[in-house]
Each structure stands twice: as structure tokens, then as C-alpha cells.
């Protein structure tokens, strides 16, 4: 447990080290999540386009 506390403490530089790692984590997370969310929306829109075309061509 003591070594874990030491790890978190980072020899007194905890705020610097963990804030920079936090920012990086946030930025990388967003870079992955945003395209994934965009993909879901795109799929919905494209499906709608394809359906519209099919229904208009069948009429």
C-alpha cells in the first residue's frame, strides 16, 4: 500500500505528472470516441438515403 501511495505521489511532482497524463488521456479518448460516434450517425443517415431511393424507384 505504501508503494502505491508513493506511486501516486510521484516524488512530489504528482500534480504535474498526473495532470499531463490526464490531458493526454482525455485528448486520445476523444480522438477515438468522436469518430466512432460519427460513424453511428453516418450509418443511420446512409440507411435512410438508401431506403428513400429504393422506395422512390419502386413507385
Amino acid at each position, binding site marked *: 500500500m505504501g508503494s502505491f501511495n508513493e*506511486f501516486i505521489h*510521484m*516524488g*512530489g*511532482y504528482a500534480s*504535474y*505528472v498526473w*495532470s*499531463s*497524463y490526464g*490531458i*493526454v488521456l482525455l*485528448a*486520445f479518448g476523444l*480522438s*477515438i470516441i468522436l*469518430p*466512432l460516434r*460519427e*460513424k453511428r450517425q*453516418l*450509418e443511420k*443517415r*446512409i*440507411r435512410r*438515403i*438508401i431506403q428513400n431511393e429504393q422506395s422512390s424507384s419502386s413507385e
Partner: protein
Amino acid sequence: MIMRFIYQLGSPPYFYALSGRLLPWLSGICLILFATGLYGGLVLAPADYQQGDSFRIIYIHVPAAWMSMFVYMVMAFSGAMALIWRIKIAEIILINSAHIGAVFTFLALVTGSIWGKPMWGTWWVWDARLTSELLLLFLYLGVLALYSAIDDKRKAARAVAILALVGVVNIPIIHYSVEWWSTLHQGPTITKFDKPSIDTRMLIPLLLMAVAHKFLYAIVVLLRARNDLLWRERRSQWVATLFKDGS
């Protein structure tokens, strides 16, 4: 053989299918690399004898700074391919690299400045490395602004390709001039890497993290490129069949 592969890669359905198959593998390898690199860097590596534990920022700062240059090189290279051979995939790689490249550059700046606070006592010094990184960020922002300002996206991609090539010619000049400027003004600056050799227990995690960042870049670009491709080709046959089979 290689030309044939590039030609195939240039075809959107092939690229879409291949990248879809590659992504899980890339993500797995990337996660493993990040896990081992972080464990090695944050736990196993000894504290630096001068900087203490604050040096551990190196494992995200330096890879991000390397990536910021690497991504711009990729952009210039795919820009050349897009202009010379009109390869659509090259255009898509080029423009979808710009966001993540700007993110890497921004992170290199922010972590560099957070690291600078305990080392130099201030958040920012006009040292050569940070200043050229800042200018590189402006180059990235210029690419993004130009792309979003042109409505016709094929035209925009060509404009951005030209800009990326102009930028890549200028980067060495900017870098050299900034270096020259900072040596004149500050005398010899204390660099973060003034030690003659770096402990292997410190070096190996750094290399692991650098490779992990490359994989992360590949993943983000592929994700964005696939979205882009899907939307651009939404009226094409292959997208239609893709959605018929899928749903």
C-alpha cells in the same frame, strides 16, 4: 507488385474492407504497447537523478512531439500522391491526418509546458523546441482552416495537398531559423537531454510509447478515413451492398 497493391489500396471498397479487418488487430497491439510502455515508464523506470519523478512526463511529451513531425511528413507524402496520381485514398488520409496531427502537436506543447514548470520555474520559455512546435501547430491549424473553408471537398483536398507540400519545404527552414534565433538570444539553453546516455530502463518504455503512439495515429486516421469514405461514396454501389448485407 507494389504498384498493384497501391492501386488496389486506392480503390475505396478494398480500402474500406481491409481497414475494417485491420482495425481490431491494430487496437489490440496498441493497447498492449500502451500498457507495457506505461508500466515500464511509470513504475519500472527509476527516477531521474536530477529531475526526480517529473521526468516521467517524457513518455507522453516526446512521443507526441515526434508524432507531430511524423504526421506532417505523412500528410506531405500523401499530398504528393494525391496531386500526382489523383489517388482518392491519399486525399482522405491527408485530410484526416490533420486533426490528430494538431492534437499531437497541442499535447506536445501542453505537456512540455507542464514539464517546464518544475524544470525551468515558468510555464513557458521561448526555447527553440517549444517555439518550433508552436509554429507547427499554426501550420496544422492553417491546413484545417483551409480545408473547412472550401466547400467543394475534392478541391479542398487538392488545396490542402499543395499547402502541405509548401509547409514541408518550410518546416526545416523554420526549424533552423528558430534554432538560430534561440542560440543567439539565450546562449546555451539547458536541454532536457543533456545527459550523454539514457538508462535503458528509461529508454525502452520511451520507444514502446513511441510505437504505441504510431499505432494510435493509424487507428484514428483509419476510423476517420472510413467515415469520410462512407459519406463521400454514399451513392455508390458498394456502399449500398454493404448496407444490404449488414442490416
